[in-house]
């Protein structure tokens, strides 16, 4: 997780219809989905997001539909990690399975602002401001989740496990 990245901040209960509206689900091409990432919550996001950017969100992120396209859209748009107070369960699983880093922190949300740049430090397991004056720690990632994330998602993990 090296480098400095812009924070995009959203509130509580951002549902998957806001992350990728149902009307775009006909086309499974990740590039098409990325053009509409977060469209329901912020029409400016898809055009403004850069590779490596961080989503900082509140409670229950990704609630609603099981659509995996929500994760595909964010990942393809360049989002490197999510930092949330909590996730809806299917969204969390989908992120792990597609290798999108889903981090949990109760304190980061109040500490960082939209548009601010920050660093994700995997040694410290924290998000840190550029001037290093602000630091919010992540909750440890459970072992059964980490082993999948470390391989970049469920399919790479299974390829290794099944010797494919």
């Amino acid at each position: 997780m090296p480098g400095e990245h812009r924070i995009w901040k959203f509130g509580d209960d951002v549902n998957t219809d806001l992350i990728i509206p149902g009307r775009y689900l006909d086309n499974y091409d990740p590039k098409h989905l990325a053009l509409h990432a977060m469209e329901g919550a912020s029409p400016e996001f898809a055009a403004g997001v850069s590779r490596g950017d961080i989503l900082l969100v509140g409670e229950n992120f990704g609630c609603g539909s099981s659509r995996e396209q929500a994760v595909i859209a964010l990942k393809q748009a360049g989002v490197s990690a999510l930092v949330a107070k909590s996730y809806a369960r299917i969204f969390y699983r989908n992120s792990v399975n597609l290798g999108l880093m889903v981090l949990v922190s109760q304190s980061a949300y109040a500490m960082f602002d939209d548009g601010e740049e920050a660093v994700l430090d995997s040694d410290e397991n924290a998000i840190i401001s550029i001037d290093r004056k602000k630091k919010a720690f992540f909750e440890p990632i459970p072992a059964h989740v980490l082993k999948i994330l470390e391989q970049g998602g469920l399919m790479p993990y299974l390829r290794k496990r099944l010797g494919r």
Partner: protein
Amino acid sequence: MAGKTLAEKILSRASGKADAEAGDVVEAKPDFVFSHENTFLVNRSFAELGLEKPWDVSKVAVFLDHRSPANTAQTAAAHARIREVVRKFGIERFYDVGEGICHNLLIEERLIRPAQLVLGSDSHTTTAGAIGAFGAGIGATEMAGIWATGSIWLKVPATLRVDLGGHLPVGSYSKDVALQLARKLGHSGADYMCVEFSGSYLVDTTIASRMVLCNMAAEMGAKTALVPADATVYSWYSSRPSEDRSALCSDDDARFEATIRMDVSQIPPTVSGPDKIDLSDSVDKFLDIDVNQAFVGSCTNGRLEDLVAAAQILKDRHVAKGCRLIVGPASRRVLEDAIESGVAKILLDAGAAIIPPGCGPCLGSHEGVLGPGETCISSSNRNFRGRMGSDDAKIYIASPATVAASAVRGRIADPREVLVDAR
């Protein structure tokens, strides 16, 4: 030692870990799995593994229900690809255009049984709890993982018990119970939990109405929902299930996260919205909101009893000018039964547009997409902004009776008042 909840029992059996309890992470083998249009994504991930076919195709079903018949050329191409995949793998339980909604067919076609572990790549897989099965929604890639290995990691959920006593008053239905529960719990009040329904209300409650409760539990964040199998379920399967009775319900001394008690005899017709399911309240708080579209259907409320409830309101009445009523039967069987019983004729005479069995306009891709500034009252499950079309449309959720009454008035209306009005 404390007893076990039904959720703990089912996941203990499915994982082979005899004493699995809430909070444990287990590797479980599902008894049945299914996917819908997202089979396209399941197969795309599965193909990365280079395996010949899924681990056990007799446990796999595929449904085309979400954008069915195809709404665009792209969907048609995806449908074609899915049919190829189904043929290649020899998946016999394939339900093509016109058959109906996955959650409905699982029970109607008796594809699943009580106490089974059922996983579907759809968030409303909780509906399977209506016959006492542990149904949970997952994503497409982990469905591919199950296709490959026949197993999946799951956290054993804590159980929130919802004890429902009494009998519903005239004009109220299980949907109203679900919306009042959403008001009480909030849209994330059952996060990661199993919601287990119990109580005297359930004794005379149909499987269709139980499906409404379990379906709507997903809107409160539940991982799964359960109505333990009873005589109603046994008769649905025309025999007592072979499972031991104790395997089908929670122990009396099981550990519940909490127990909520509701007296359903106090529940009025209820409306929820816009935007959030827990913005639910008695219909009289919503009267006089103009409605452009009314929808009776979806996996929540698209069964015969729902169409009958709407027909009782609509008989010898007509949908108001400026309002449209869309009716989406949840399956071919529902549509056939509605035709044979005369219910379909009543709906048509009242001005309803009946669409093919499937998810219909619920997810905003076709058959009743909302325009900017429009308002819809719907018997479906989600009123998220933008869900059914324009971000500037408003969605209210209610029972089929309240939806039908609102269609007659052209504004949100109390079904009890419409029923007593002279025709």
